[in-house]
């Protein structure tokens, strides 16, 4: 496509250059002034050649390629993953598995996955440039597309339909892993959250449940069942925070919960102003959620 476009562009510019070189001589090079021939040239370059190129482009891209990358037929895939777009994070559910995470999608390598996308609020668009086309998440509608990774690796994805203030910070990662590794990961995600083991972490858990966090977040196996923010059941296994905005380290997590608005202005998570001690305790608790 690029090559054809290049030829067309250079050809047309070359004709303009001929026009410049022959600026003092009327008529065509070699053929001179011939009005019929001029019209013929317009028909040839403006109609005949485009028709040939366009038909070829149409057949290749819209009939052949489109089919190959389309949403998979029912039951042709190994599993279904639902991704729900929220302002501004991604909720990820493994259907039939009772497993939920956020902002990262783990898939087994070389396995076609039926990816269903939905929205909790406005229109977003799920896009992993290296894996497939983008597909919009529309409220009240489920769209699906095939997600398939030939090679193991980490693929970055992002929202690509403007969705408000923090559209720029609504990214995610797809981890394509060998099947055993994927199974192990999924087995862990299915479990409820680990109980805190240190006194500091226990203190953090109490603060989490009492001081507001639980109103928006779910931690499976605890009383935290909020649905406004991302599921934190296995937060410590994730590599990034706030939809791929900052890395998930204890220092960054502390910075984040202390003042989310300074890192991602407009994000729905408020700074709760609990004081450094309680924040440290909450970090200790969350970092234990492996």
């Amino acid at each position, binding site marked *: 496509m690029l090559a054809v476009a290049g030829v067309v562009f250079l050809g047309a510019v070359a004709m303009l250059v001929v*026009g410049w070189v022959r*600026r003092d001589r009327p008529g065509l090079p070699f053929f001179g002034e011939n009005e019929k021939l001029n019209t013929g040239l317009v028909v040839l370059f403006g109609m005949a050649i485009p028709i040939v190129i366009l038909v070829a482009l149409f057949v290749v891209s*819209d009939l052949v390629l489109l089919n190959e990358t389309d949403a998979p037929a029912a039951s042709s895939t190994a599993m279904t993953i639902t991704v729900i777009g929220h302002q501004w994070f991604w909720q990820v559910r493994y259907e039939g598995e009772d497993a939920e995470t956020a902002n990262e999608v783990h898939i087994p390598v070389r396995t076609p996955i039926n990816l269903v996308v939905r929205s909790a609020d406005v229109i977003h*668009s799920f896009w992993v440039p290296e894996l497939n086309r983008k597909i919009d998440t529309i409220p009240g509608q489920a769209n699906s597309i095939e997600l398939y990774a030939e090679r193991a690796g980490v693929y970055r994805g992002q929202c690509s339909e403007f969705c*408000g203030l923090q559209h720029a910070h609504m990214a995610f990662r797809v981890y394509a892993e060998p099947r055993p590794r994927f199974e192990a990961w999924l087995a862990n995600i299915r479990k409820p959250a680990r109980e805190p083991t240190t006194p500091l972490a226990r203190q953090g858990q109490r603060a989490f449940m009492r001081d507001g966090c639980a109103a928006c977040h779910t931690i499976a196996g605890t009383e935290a069942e909020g649905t406004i923010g991302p599921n934190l059941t296995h937060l410590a296994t994730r590599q990034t925070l706030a939809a791929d905005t900052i890395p998930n380290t204890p220092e960054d997590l502390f910075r984040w919960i202390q003042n989310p608005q300074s890192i991602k202005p407009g994000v729905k998570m408020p700074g709760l102003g609990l004081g450094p001690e309680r924040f440290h305790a909450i970090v200790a608790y969350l970092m234990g959620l492996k």
Partner: protein
Amino acid sequence: MTVSTPPATTVRLNRLERIWKESPGVLGWLTTVDHKRIGILYFFTSLFFFGAGGVEALAIRTQLIGPNQSTLSPATFNEMMSTHGTTMIFFFVVPMSLGAFGNYLIPLMIGARDMAFPRLNALSFWIYLCAGSFLYVGVFTGNAPSAGWFDYVPLASKTYSPGPGIDFYALSLLFVGISTTLGAINAIVTIFKLRAPGMSLNRMPLFCFAFLAVSFALIFALPALSTALVLLELERLLGFHFFIPASGGDPILWQNLFWIFGHPEVYIIILPAFGIATSIIPTFVRRKMVAFPLVALAEILVAFLGFGVWAHHMFAVGLASATAIYFAAASLVIVIPSGIQLFAWITTIVTGTPRFKTPFLWIIGFIVLFIMGGLSGVTFAAIPFDQQTTDTYYVVAHFHYVIFGAAVFPLLGGMYYWFPKVTGRMYYERWGKVSFWLTFIGTNVTFFPMHILGLDGMPRRNYTYGPEMGWTGLNLIETLGAYLLALGLLSVFVNLAVSLFRGEKAGNDPWEGDTLEWSTTSPPPAYNYAVIPKVSSPYAMWDKEDREEDARNLELGRKTLEQGHETPASTAVDADWDEVLEMPSHSAWPPLVALAMTGVFAMVLLQQWLAAAVFVGILALTVAGFHLKEPEEA
């Protein structure tokens, strides 16, 4: 006029001068119904909005100059990009092409003395001015829209955009839509009924074909937008349910309605530019357009086919495959009329003997940029490719090549081309060329790298990006390009402003132009032509015998219509002499109607329903006043 003007001619010219005179000073500008003065009002108003949109663009580029910048907050960035798009499309390009160029030039090119409905013409302008001001009252009071120029719901619904920004957007577009509709109707009737007797459709300049096609496209496209906006406001202000799925609505309805308008709008933006190009090229290459009938047909076909392709803006929303494939095929078909026009221009240039003056340089620039934008446009009809690149910087690159490169370059070329006609003075040629190269290079440096960034995955409308993405270098280049581009544009207007006072006298026809406007004085008199011109080809100005006959007719007092405020009407196709129309003269009602209408829209915005009803009453009174017969002219 030469020194040997016969006394009878002088008497005739003086009489016409007196009959067509308007009030002097500011009052004259407020009450004018002269299409040329209205064109100039449109020009300066849309130039102001061009400046505003340009400042917004520079703010956006400055924010994106490096990773993680905070020149603009995310909220301000979103307001800037939404207002930039809305301003440039609705309040700059369309009013500049249809309002300024169309108004000024259509009657001159067809040998008429004014538009068919001069008061309606004034009303279109005043409504446009009020609607634009309405939007910018929102911007300056911190209530700019921030859901993008295509304003997708549910983001634009009350729940996710609670402030009045979206209301300013929706009501101002509804408001300006009235102006555009009136303008389009006026242009259609003018082109069909006011052509100089003898100018049958096949002798009409291609410029007028383009404007005719645009006007029809507007009349059919705008209702879809107006419907969408009314539904949106009913939902936002009164709690109706159209777009919200939770209450039985459908967000895709908005997208369908918007793009049913929005894609024809692209051709509405670009067709006047085609018309300007087909005016300028013959003059500077000193030959008629190659394949004239094909080009005329192509101009009309583009406008028509533009209605059948809207869903190619929606390939990622989950359309059924068959639907998507139809829209892809339709989008490919539209390449053909564009290709015809493109190669007609190129063949005309190759076979002519071009003079590379400034206006022509802009047209060459336009052709090159249009090929770029056209080729990147074709790629969107390949659905899998579209679904990779849609909503990335690749799209941003594409439509800036088309809208800035292909639509605005001819407007700029046209400003140089008709500057001598409008002002009676020449611009500075050397500066003109420097400005062209600055702008042309600036355009490519700004917009070309966007293709690469888009293919590399940078989504549009992100207020910032991380340093790890590898997008820093190209973004820096783009921002520097944008500053260069701004400098180039600034130099264009400085040149024209200085030339207005210091330029050499231009004379009637400095270019040996091809169309009628070059036969009258520069600037033209209020009545345009003392003699209704004789026309026997689309290149009327090159038919020397006809122009000599006009001069004889003036001497003899034939076809001068000097007994009243009059212009002839002719039959729609063959342009046979039909009747003589008495034209309305200046009036204070158009601005008053527009003001009353502003009151209605403002009260709706503030949800003061009683006050809105009062303004509707006032509006009805002003409209009645508008239709009062004026006192007889002395």
